[in-house]
């Protein structure tokens, strides 16, 4: 009886597929993989975008979290998925420019993905505890150089944006060997990294401004700088241009959508259209800007260039400082 039922159902399904074979993508629900856990920056960004995206997409979008290994678990799932456009990825700065630059053992490279668009840029800010005697970047650098080993910075783990950002900022400000003169303290997750600065475990932190905004406005953390050229609302701190370090403008977070490499042009076009409409949604803009992100939609070509550019800069720094993880 069971066999008959399965047989009947498969016949039905075959009939259905045959009937709509010429129809346009998407014919059915699309699975959107979020490679980080619920409540994180990527998750909130993705789920906020899901709302306007769901309105413009003709089929449902199923948002799923696939967490683990700094975004690698979810990314690998999309890398190995069918190239039919029914499995897409929310790619993030950590999983797609810092990780490839730092980890030799990473099971994927940037070439394994086809980006359909980067839609969000997050400025990076550096901050210290509000009671600290460090009042400016100069103070921080003086302390690093004056008493090596006395300064530490927290991150959400090895291979995270925070890990690289701390080293990159120190290097740009003339610290020769940031990894030896300052200590990197990896914690589990962005919330723990910020708390570590609050309770004195680490001296400073460089991360997305949105992760620090509430601490700054509550007067618990003191911002030292932001990496963008324009000032960030709520952060009373000089920009990278003010400080004469324009190279730090490359140090920003981003979120984008990618599919496996080899996905058809048709699918990429559909997604370009979706993203253009979804990112123009007023409610979406308002929610994202309230959280401190800059909404800037890049087309597939621009996205690819932007990510590759960031990857090259990060890779050069990683090689110079010997940060690459080989084992």
């Amino acid at each position, binding site marked *: 009886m*069971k066999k008959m039922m*399965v047989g009947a*159902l*498969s016949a039905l*399904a075959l009939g259905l597929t045959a009937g709509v074979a010429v129809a346009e993508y998407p014919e*059915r*629900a699309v*699975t959107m993989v979020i490679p980080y856990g619920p409540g994180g920056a990527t998750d909130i960004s993705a789920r906020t975008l899901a709302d306007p995206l769901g309105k413009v997409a003709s089929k449902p979008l*199923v*948002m*799923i979290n696939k967490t683990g290994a700094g975004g690698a678990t979810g990314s690998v799932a999309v890398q190995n998925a069918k190239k039919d456009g029914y499995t897409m990825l929310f790619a993030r700065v950590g999983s797609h420019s810092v990780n490839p630059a730092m980890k030799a053992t990473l099971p994927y490279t940037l070439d394994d993905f086809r980006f359909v668009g980067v839609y969000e840029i997050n400025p990076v800010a550096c901050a210290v505890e509000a009671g600290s005697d460090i009042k400016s970047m100069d103070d921080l650098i003086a302390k690093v150089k004056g008493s090596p080993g006395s300064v530490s910075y927290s991150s959400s783990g090895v291979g995270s944006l925070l890990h690289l950002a701390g080293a990159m900022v120190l290097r740009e400000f003339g610290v020769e060997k940031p990894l030896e003169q300052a200590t990197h303290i990896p914690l589990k997750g962005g919330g723990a990294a910020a708390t570590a600065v609050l309770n004195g475990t680490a001296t400073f932190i460089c991360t997305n401004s949105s992760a620090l905004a509430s601490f700054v406005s509550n007067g618990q953390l003191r911002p030292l700088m932001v990496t963008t050229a324009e000032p960030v609302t709520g952060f009373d701190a000089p920009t990278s241009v003010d400080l004469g370090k324009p190279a730090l403008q490359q140090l920003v977070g981003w979120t984008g959508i990618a599919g496996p490499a080899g996905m058809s042009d048709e699918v990429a076009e559909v997604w370009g259209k979706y993203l253009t409409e979804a990112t123009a949604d007023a409610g979406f803009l308002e929610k994202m800007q309230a959280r401190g992100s800059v909404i800037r939609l890049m087309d597939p070509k621009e996205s690819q260039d932007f990510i590759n550019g960031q990857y090259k800069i990060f890779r050069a720094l990683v090689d110079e400082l*010997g940060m690459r*993880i*080989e*084992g």
Partner: protein
Amino acid sequence: MSSRHKQLGIGGAAVLSSAFLFFVGIPYGISAPSNIRNIVLSPLFWPQILAGLIGLVGLGILVSAARAGAGETVTAGQDQTPDQAQSEPGNWLRLAVMTVILVVYLAAVPWIGLVWASIPAFIAVAFLIQTRHPKTAVIAAILVPLVLYAFFAHVAGVAVPQGEFVRLP
């Protein structure tokens, strides 16, 4: 199998796995960078402590089993439940069949989808444990996965694996 035999078994296994970890598991399973400044920060430090402790505890279990044997004290009676005491060939056979069912179940999920893999697995397990309600079991085998699918796919928003053949709405 008496309690003492069990103790000798697990104690011996612990000592052996400790040695295995030290000489094979940790050197080949964990990679550590060459430029570590402080030994306590090495990725190997903690697993080595654990391997050492496993060996020690294993030895401890062996010693206490040996002492219990020498003194002929019967602590065996209290930590044995009667149904675990005997083992017949039938037990192992059913366990082997169960293992096959689980492996096939797991392998079938990406291929035919979670729902269609669960139905035969449900029926197979129900008959393996000699259910007294075969009709109910078959009906439940069809309904339970479908209901779970409806819940997880449409209420919880999980992308339940659909397989290559029959897609559910």
